[in-house]
């Protein structure tokens, strides 16, 4: 685990277990989110992300393990914890007979503190007509109402459970900007998602879970480092055998299709492989750096076994 500033973590979970009857939704999960960081919380559907988040909010009680949010135990001090955080649920339900503005008023009124100027600005940026009744809102618009409330509230921690599932690409971009701004302002963000691309651009660190268990946790940069790049090249016909030999000696196994070589190369071996291909005068040399997506999908598959 990386402690970037040496502060105590905002979210500190140790060996969390949550059972519903005989079903174990979360099984020995560790999760640490450092202050001021944007932490991705990744996993396929049904991995236990929302359950974990509901434990963090004090909506569920942990079966076992130690949970601390903002230095407090949410099971005992749920109100004090939640007053200092903003929450966007995965499935947004609101009171259908209130307008968007009235929902914002109600949520801020209950919290007891608000930044109305920020609310207005965000509602404008998200192109949300807050005078309309919630019943006329699409899923995306309901999500915007809660996002505006969460981002505008003067809180230290943002807990976002798949917050962009109903937003269009433009709004998703705006959302990412808002998350970066929040982090820049010193707020901490826990962003859950089952889509890596959504998290990749904004998160410093990620935790990947599957079936309630921790799969991998750490800096995105480090994870990328472990993954392999893909190199392709088209050597001249008579050199094909020689090049293949050389690559095999470098410790990588090229595949050949219609004269095109494709080879998966560990990050450390990329310069040597590219050098060998260039020396042989191969055409169409490409090198694609490791896609986190591949790593991520690999984890999904491995964990599924």
């Amino acid at each position: 685990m990386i402690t970037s500033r040496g502060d105590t973590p905002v979210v500190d979970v140790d060996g969390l277990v949550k059972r519903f009857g005989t079903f174990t939704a979360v099984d020995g999960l560790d999760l640490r989110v450092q202050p001021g960081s944007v932490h991705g919380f990744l996993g396929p559907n049904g991995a236990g992300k929302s359950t974990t988040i509901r434990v963090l909010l004090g909506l569920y009680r942990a079966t076992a393990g130690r949970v601390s949010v903002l230095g407090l135990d949410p099971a005992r001090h749920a109100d004090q914890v939640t007053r200092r955080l903003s929450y966007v649920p995965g499935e947004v339900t609101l009171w259908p007979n209130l307008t968007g503005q009235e929902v914002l008023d109600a949520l801020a009124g209950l919290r007891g503190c608000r930044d109305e100027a920020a609310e207005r600005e965000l509602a404008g940026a998200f192109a949300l007509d807050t005078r309309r009744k919630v019943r006329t809102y699409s899923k995306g618009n309901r999500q915007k109402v809660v996002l505006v409330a969460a981002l505008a509230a003067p809180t230290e921690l943002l807990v976002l459970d798949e917050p962009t599932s109903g937003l269009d690409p433009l709004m998703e971009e705006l959302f990412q900007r808002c998350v970066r701004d929040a982090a820049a302002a010193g707020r901490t963000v826990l962003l859950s998602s089952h889509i890596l691309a959504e998290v990749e651009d904004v998160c410093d660190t990620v935790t990947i879970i599957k079936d309630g268990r921790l799969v991998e946790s750490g800096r995105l940069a480090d994870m990328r480092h472990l993954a392999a790049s893909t190199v392709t090249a088209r050597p001249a016909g008579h050199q094909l055998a020689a090049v293949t030999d050389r690559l095999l000696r470098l410790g990588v196994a090229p595949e050949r299709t219609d004269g095109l070589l494709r080879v998966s190369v560990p990050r450390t071996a990329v310069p040597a492989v590219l050098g060998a291909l260039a020396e042989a005068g191969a055409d169409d040399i490409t090198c694609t750096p490791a896609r986190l997506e591949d790593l991520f999908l690999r984890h999904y598959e491995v964990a599924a076994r």
Partner: protein
Amino acid sequence: MTLTRLLVRRHRLTLTCWLLLLTGLSGGTVTAYQNTYATEQQREAAAALARDNAATTMMYGRLPVPGTPAQMYVWEIGAFTTVLAAVMAVLVAVSLTRAAEDDGTLELLRGCGIAPARPLRSALWVLAGCAVVLGAGCTVAAGVHTGSVDGVTGAGAAAYGTAVALTFLLFAALTVLLSQIAPAAGQARLLGFTVVGLSFAVRAFADTQQIGWLTWFSPLGLRATVEPFTSDRWTAALLPVAAAALTATAAVLLSQRREFGAGLLPRRDRRTARLRLGSTVALTARLNRASLLTWTVAVAAIGTVFAAMGSGAVDRERDGEVGGFLGAQLNGADPAAAFLSYCGTVVGIIVCVYAVLSVSQSRHAERRGLTDMVLATGVRRWVPLAAQSAVTAAGCAVVLLVTGVLSALVAPAVIAGDDVAVRAFGYIAGQWGAVVAMTGCTALIAGTAPRWTALAWLPLTAAAGLALLGDLLGVPQRVQDLGIFPHVPDLALADASPAGLLLLVGIGAALCLTGLWGMARRDLIIG
């Protein structure tokens, strides 16, 4: 034709239930009017009493001379069947037209190459068909008693069936017209029921003030204009047929001038109102405002009419005539006091239904994730349920107070007796204890065993059964006293003790606190 068949297929259960209810009500009650009065004199005396009674005239209209069993049947049962036919017309007409637009099913059909005008035309055909079936059903249901019940004739039965069918047809056409204007299905229904209420008011006003010509202007006055079993005036049926045809034509014309899914009146989904609140109680009160208002108006109207209806029963009880269900209820020293107590019990039961529904809202909010949203703003775990319970108890107090005050104003005018106003108010307002107990009971289940919240209906059903049927079934008094309804102090008595009422409030509070304790100790359960 395909679309018409599809509409019938989709709504066949509702339509069948309504038609069975109305024909069953029409057919099953005829013989009762033959058997109630042993002799001609008794019946004529009862008929004379009914003609002089303002309350029954208001409810049922004017009883024709001489008051044969057939005439009494149309006068009393006809009042129910026509009002029910009107309610059926509003509900069915909206579900055939606007509701299908709002829920998106019609959109699907319109995307299948159906002409824009066809859905409405099909709906009108289905409604006309319903009217025919309803009329035929009521005619047969009443007509089979020809010969066995005095005054029943084939022609009279046909006139009765026609009156019910035309009532349905008129309200159906009116509702279809209103559906073109109303911004959404809900408002269309509300407008339709308002027209039913207005028609009833016009009919009641015309009958109590004896303004004969005004009856012609109320669709619910058809029994008075067609006069089944009296003059069987068929010409009076022409006017409503023409009116229904005109209204339906107007609806078709209007339908061409509006957008799909929107009425001629713009939908008011946009408003600039703000919510200035700082507590969960305030939010809960705001969210329950509309339903509380509806319940207050409905319970106050029903309770007051019910109290006003009692004059006849109280008079007859004084003469020792009332038997059966009502007689068991009025079995007391002072018939007026007994009747008012009975009214209070009925109002208490209705308000308890509201209490159970209202507290159950907290469970619905939890299941839909709304409680998550509230708790995530730093609200304590037990507060939403506490707020819902408090708002429910306070709201029920409002309903009971309004109903009590209205009854106290109306009852003395129609019921003779001592301290009628005080008792009318006291017996209704005093049911607050029972309501608080029921609120606490529901809160207990919602707090500790949320999945079983529906079980709150059990104690209510048991208590209502004990209160309404206990005497009739000969249940011992100490068992009856276990119910929550018979503990209202009689305000007219000098030594009236509020102990029972206070005990109920105490029990309700204790149950509610236990529920809150359970709420604070368990997981929230969504879905």
